[in-house]
């Protein structure tokens, strides 16, 4: 007797679960206009909204005085798993304190080798680096993918610790 009950129970449960699935897809079908998530990329360039956390490429943040927060500690260079960052440092004499301090000459970033893993941004102790939201980064020559991240004429911000 119990097997007979189980048989009909199985049929009922089967129909019920099938209907549950059909309700889900049916909702999608009849609300397709609202729910469709496809972006027709080249056509919607004007209205395209890139999420804030999208990793486009690594940039160094500069404020309005053309000052950045990088003191050339090379933590990002060490954190990079595929060696796409190379920092050339320089030493200058601080005229006020009379100390020799380290500054960056060039923060070289090879975008062609970068996997956008975000490890350099996390490693940076002074939050000098960030990921921007740029896309369409393709170029015609490999050399165009090597960037110097510190802007020409920029200098380190005063309150950054060594």
């Amino acid at each position, binding site marked *: 007797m119990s097997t007979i009950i189980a048989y009909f129970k199985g*049929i009922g449960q089967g129909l019920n679960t*099938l209907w549950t*699935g*059909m309700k*889900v*897809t*049916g909702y*999608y*079908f009849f609300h*397709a206009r609202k*729910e*469709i*998530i*496809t972006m*027709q990329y080249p056509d919607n360039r004007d209205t395209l909204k890139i999420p804030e956390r999208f990793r486009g490429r690594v940039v160094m943040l500069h404020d309005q005085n053309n000052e950045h927060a990088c003191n050339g500690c090379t933590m990002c260079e060490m954190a990079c798993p595929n060696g796409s960052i190379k920092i050339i440092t320089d030493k200058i004499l601080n005229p006020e304190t009379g100390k020799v301090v380290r500054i960056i000459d060039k923060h070289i970033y090879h975008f062609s080798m970068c996997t956008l893993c975000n490890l350099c941004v996390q490693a940076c102790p002074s939050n000098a680096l960030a990921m921007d939201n740029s896309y369409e980064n393709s170029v015609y020559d490999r050399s165009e993918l090597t960037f110097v991240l510190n802007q020409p004429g920029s200098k380190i911000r005063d309150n950054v610790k060594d």
Partner: protein
Amino acid sequence: MNAIYDFSILTGGIHEWLSGLMSPTAVMITEMVIIGTLLIVFVALMGLVLVLAERKVAAFFQLRLGPNRVGPWGSLQTLADFLKLLTKELITTKSADKFLYNLAPFIVMLTPFLALGVIPFAPGLQIMDMNIGVFFITAVSSMGVLGILIGGWASNNKYSLIGGMRSAAMVVSYELSVTLAIMTMVIMTESLSLSEIVASQSDGWWIIKGHIPALIAFLLYLTASTAETNRGPFDLAEAESELTAGFHTEYGGIKFAFFFLSEFVNMLVVASIATILFFGGWMPFHLPFEWAVGFNHIMDFIPGIVWGFGKVTFVIFLMMWFRWTFPRLRIDQILNLEWKYLLPMNLVNFLLMALIALSGFYL
């Protein structure tokens, strides 16, 4: 039913005009050529439309957009695909059985052509009114699996062979359920002629008049016929993830298109039979009550061809809904479903329908 929507006026007119021009034999041959051409055009058109519909419907179920680049709303996409398939080179693999390999697509394609020959789509729009139409369709529709089996065997490829054998095991089992579900309805219609079955529903569709057993029969028929067309959750003859493409792995170009097209036209045939048996074919929606005379009269003003194709579209949509919702079954699950569930339920339902027909407990 309004007489102006009757296609037999048009076809009769053409027949009389041709009879005035030539001898009866020549008239018959000319009409056969015309009808054959129209049927080929119809099948090709329906194939293109249904493939596009399938792709669009599938896209909406999966929250995608589907084809939308070729023509407005992607409407010329399947035509472009068809032209591409037409221009491809026909390759026969080296170790294939050449004769059977080339024969299989034609057998597969022949089935929907034969079945479409007896289906009434609208008043007067029927190629041949056989008095055993239902029997003819059940006989003919089991021939499709022969083409699949031959194609799978002749390709000389393990995937094709497994696909063909699976399809054979499945279709042979599900034929029983399809036929029993049809027979359940034939108890009510008291005729095997498709046009008479449609005519018997002029005061209400059988799914309403036959209530519970008709509804069960419809569900059983829908399940079993989805399996018979190798679609939906029962598409393990193709089973992309396991067998690359199953029985048509080794086919390319227009030979592949034949397999592909036949699947969709078979779906049309199956949906048409479901429409005729359960939803009254091209009959308008009528309520079998005294007070519904005005309502019935309004329904008569919608042409039969709209009703016919509208209902076919509905059933096809149901089958597409199944396909894009349910996961594919394993071969043992499929055979379990048929032999342990569908077949016993069909037999009991058959008995129930016979009792209801005897006791007159229907509208």
